[in-house]
């Protein structure tokens, strides 16, 4: 029995996308439960990954109505887009999922490019309170708390999730368009709230300079739509 066929049967039976870690866990559990499954107990991440890639390749050229893809480092079977009319008819779907509003997108963009970031920092950038928006993004699973900022009050910091990557069809945060450029454009941060910036490995620290301390978040007039 080949590893790639085993991985295929698992992905095939899964209710959600699986990471290499998840799959290795399954291989281990199976080996512990069933003696006949012992062979792949300790398949390395490299071995699993290359088997998955071979499998995705096979399915890619098989001419079937579905294939295997990896999104946000998680593997899954998906149907080919051209069959969407029938699949949608099956699940009774008519309306597309609701889209993010402009305020939500702006908030999400700031969090995506500047994570980890506190709520106050986001509000400072957007110039309006973001309570409701942040709540929705949290509920929708697009952002999550990732830690606390080492400043007075130890406010929570937020970052994007794997769901965020899936929603936008990205493999990783590095795939955000013009990520490097946009991350480096200085954005004013109030001095008092400047967070330690552990996460942005790609952004040279000197470019994340604090702007001069500024007035507290502006009046709601700022929330007007784009010019």
């Amino acid at each position, binding site marked *: 029995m080949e590893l790639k066929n085993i991985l295929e049967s698992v992905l095939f039976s899964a209710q959600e996308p699986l990471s290499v870690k998840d799959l290795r866990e399954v291989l281990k559990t199976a080996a512990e439960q069933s003696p006949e499954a012992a062979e792949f107990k300790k398949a390395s991440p490299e071995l699993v990954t290359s088997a998955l890639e071979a499998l995705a390749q096979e399915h890619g050229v098989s001419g079937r109505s579905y294939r295997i893809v990896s999104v946000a480092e998680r593997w899954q079977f*998906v*149907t080919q887009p051209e069959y969407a009319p029938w699949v949608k008819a099956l699940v009774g779907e008519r309306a597309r999922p609701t889209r993010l509003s402009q305020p939500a997108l702006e908030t999400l963009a700031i969090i995506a490019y500047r994570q980890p970031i506190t709520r106050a920092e986001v509000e400072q950038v957007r110039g309006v309170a973001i309570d409701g928006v942040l709540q929705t993004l949290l509920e929708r699973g697009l952002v999550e708390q990732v830690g606390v900022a080492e400043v007075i009050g130890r406010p929570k910091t937020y970052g994007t999730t794997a769901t965020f990557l899936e929603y936008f069809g990205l493999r990783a945060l590095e795939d955000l368009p013009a990520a490097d450029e946009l991350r480096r454009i200085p954005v004013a941060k109030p001095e008092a709230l400047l967070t330690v910036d552990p996460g942005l490995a790609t952004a040279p620290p000197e470019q994340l300079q604090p702007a001069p301390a500024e007035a507290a978040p502006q009046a709601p007039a700022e929330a007007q739509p784009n010019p």
Partner: protein
Amino acid sequence: MSDYKVKFEVFEGPLDLLLYLIKKQEVDIYEVNLTQLASQFIEYIEVMRMLDLDIAGEFLVMASTLMYIKSRELLPVDQQVQVEGEEDEDDPRWELIRQLVEYKKFKDAAAQLQQLESRQEHVYRREAPKPVFEAELQKPDVSIFDLINAVNTILKRVTDREGEAREIYEDKWSVSEKIEMLAKLIGSKPRLKFSELFEGATSRTEVVVTFLAMLELIRMRQIVCVQSDHFAEIEITKAEPQTPTVPTEIPEQAIFEDETAKPVPSESGPTPAN
């Protein structure tokens, strides 16, 4: 003796025991020596009695049938009783064999069902997750650019607030100049690769400015971005002429809107297929 006990407990009934005895004779059911079979059956019943086992009524009924058959067989042929009106079909020997053959077939069928049963224990039906539409995963014409557009807005807002143009506008290109240039370019060449837009850029800043200009053109619905495949290169085409749309003021609470509430590029600016 304990051997017998174990065996008796596994017989489903008299027919089952008879089949077992026939199997021990290693002959086909049709060729079995019924006299011998009857003797063996009765011996087993005797053993069961001796062991004080609870003997089901069916075994006793079968025993008497067998004894009747045996008694007929033991008589010389010319003295065998020809029961008045007894048809050939009513021959008790035939009746027994017919029953045994039939029972044997169902027993075999039951064994096959059992195999199916255990096979099914290892068969798992796929219960698909809620379908993932690739089109939604990629929808690059909406999602990514909306996101970047949002960054653009933010950057401009911050810049305005600070009352000065920072690094990004210091170069020889301003965003508005770049917009004009791009608009001209797309007018002369209907389809551009994303990377082509940046080919002439001489600085990082120019790349950013170009990018922002492109975003602005998308927002103004002058151009449309398409991606033929998930990770294929993005291409830029001229948008279809249309009535300009004014973004609706969105209350902060209305985070997610129905697509009818806000025009999106994918709906309002279909890309001509080619």
